[in-house]
């Protein structure tokens, strides 16, 4: 589905990605792991075309997308759920969802699906983004990526700073989603990543250092300890 080969990215003046390679098999959830500041978020942004790579290849569905403007990348069916719940705070929930439409009527078609996953949002539909709680904002952020027909979702730290109950809800939602969509997930909480993902990729200092099946990683205490520091 997605092949990333040896990408390098600069943010401002800093060389942040120094050779990240990964592949996301169709229909799977792949977790992108690594310590704080390792370059996970930048990897997602680079795939999305927000911080274009200076070198390396990104191939999505057999088509090279490196260097395309990010709206074209999105139009190919890639949805992005950024970290820090970056919803549009001046827009209502409905407007936030409407904005994500790629074709007229997308929202109506997906309405039921979205409100099934996140029943809360239906109730809040008229509220402005500012007035939502953190968890609700995060749900909106995920829901927004579901409005158009996306075949690949890039999700960045969905559980950060959220209460456990909400995290469970979100995990459940992502799990349901993965039936139809491929997911590349950045997650700090190893246990969340472990429960959700089939594959993993570990980045460190802007480079891919390890990848494989999640099941294998779960047993590899040393790797976990070494790269992720989780107990």
């Amino acid at each position, binding site marked *: 589905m997605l092949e990333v080969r040896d990408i390098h990215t600069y943010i*401002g*003046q*800093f*060389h*942040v990605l*120094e050779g990240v390679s990964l592949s996301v098999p169709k229909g799977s959830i792949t977790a992108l792991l690594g*310590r*704080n*500041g*390792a*370059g996970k978020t930048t990897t997602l942004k680079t795939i999305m075309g927000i911080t274009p790579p200076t070198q390396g290849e990104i191939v999505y569905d057999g088509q090279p997308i490196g260097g395309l403007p990010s709206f074209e990348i999105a139009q190919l069916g890639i949805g992005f759920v950024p970290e820090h719940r970056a919803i549009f705070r001046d827009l209502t929930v409905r407007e936030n969802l409407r904005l994500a439409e790629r074709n007229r009527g997308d929202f109506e078609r997906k309405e039921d699906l979205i409100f099934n996953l996140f029943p809360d949002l239906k109730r809040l539909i008229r509220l402005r983004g*500012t*007035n939502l*709680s*953190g968890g609700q904002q995060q749900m909106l952020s995920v829901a927004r990526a579901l409005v158009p027909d996306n075949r690949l979702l890039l999700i960045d*730290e969905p559980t*950060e*700073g*959220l*209460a*456990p109950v909400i*995290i*469970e809800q979100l*995990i*459940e939602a992502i*799990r349901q989603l993965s039936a139809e969509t491929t997911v590349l997930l950045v997650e*700090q*909480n190893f*246990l*969340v990543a472990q*429960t959700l993902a089939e594959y993993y990729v570990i980045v*460190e*200092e*802007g480079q891919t250092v390890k990848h494989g099946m999640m099941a294998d990683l779960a047993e590899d205490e040393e790797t976990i*300890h*070494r*790269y992720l*520091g*989780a*107990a």
Partner: protein
Amino acid sequence: MSDDIILETYNVRKEFGALVAVADVSIRVVRGTLHSIIGPNGAGKTTFFNVVSGYLPATSGRIVYNGQDITQAPMHRRAHVGMGRSFQITNLFPNLTVLENIRLSHQAVGKNSFRLLRSHRRFGEHIDRADAIINRVGLTRYRDLPARTLAHGDQRKLELGMILAADPEMLLLDEPTAGMASDEVPELMALIQEIQAEGSKTVLLVEHNMNVVMNVSDMITVMHHGEVLAEGTPAEISSNETVQQAYLGNLYENLQEASDHA
């Protein structure tokens, strides 16, 4: 007893609009210790840290440093009373050389900053001190390269070097190991511990990775959802059930169950 407290916060609170990032946190840092604040991502550690270092104003609460109320003090004042901080996101002077980055840091606490017409090279003490620190943090090879060209781990070291150059009484370190290669981490932590012990400095360390701090800390504060969850020695913390749960979550069991069902 209270003489030994170098930094104390009283009910420090920070809100961003409706979001309460730090909810009434009170901690005491004992002079000469290495005190760590840990907690999962989004627990409010960095925000708390930013408030303590003056980068963000507190919504309410009081911060006392060495018996002096510094709640309202601007950032540059805090540096002069002896606090030096590092940033989680690399925060350097990207176009200046490694030497210049550190030299500027040392110059800041000296008395020569308002010399308008003599070359900065005439003030050799800054350069000598900077060179010593460059050696100390192992960046001698990169002395004359612009900071932005360094590799990530080296930038972290430079960050540490910049704090050392100011020779602060208390070091505030925000995830100094962020993004470093894992084999470099123990090395850096050892360096921090060494610096702390040698100069009998106080270190306040923020870290989200529990393993990193367990061996080096004298005291650990665990934050979760903006609040202090527990405080104690590493031994106490590692045996504390609430902490284990916050970190790993009862989530873990629930998830296990969920996946068992699935």
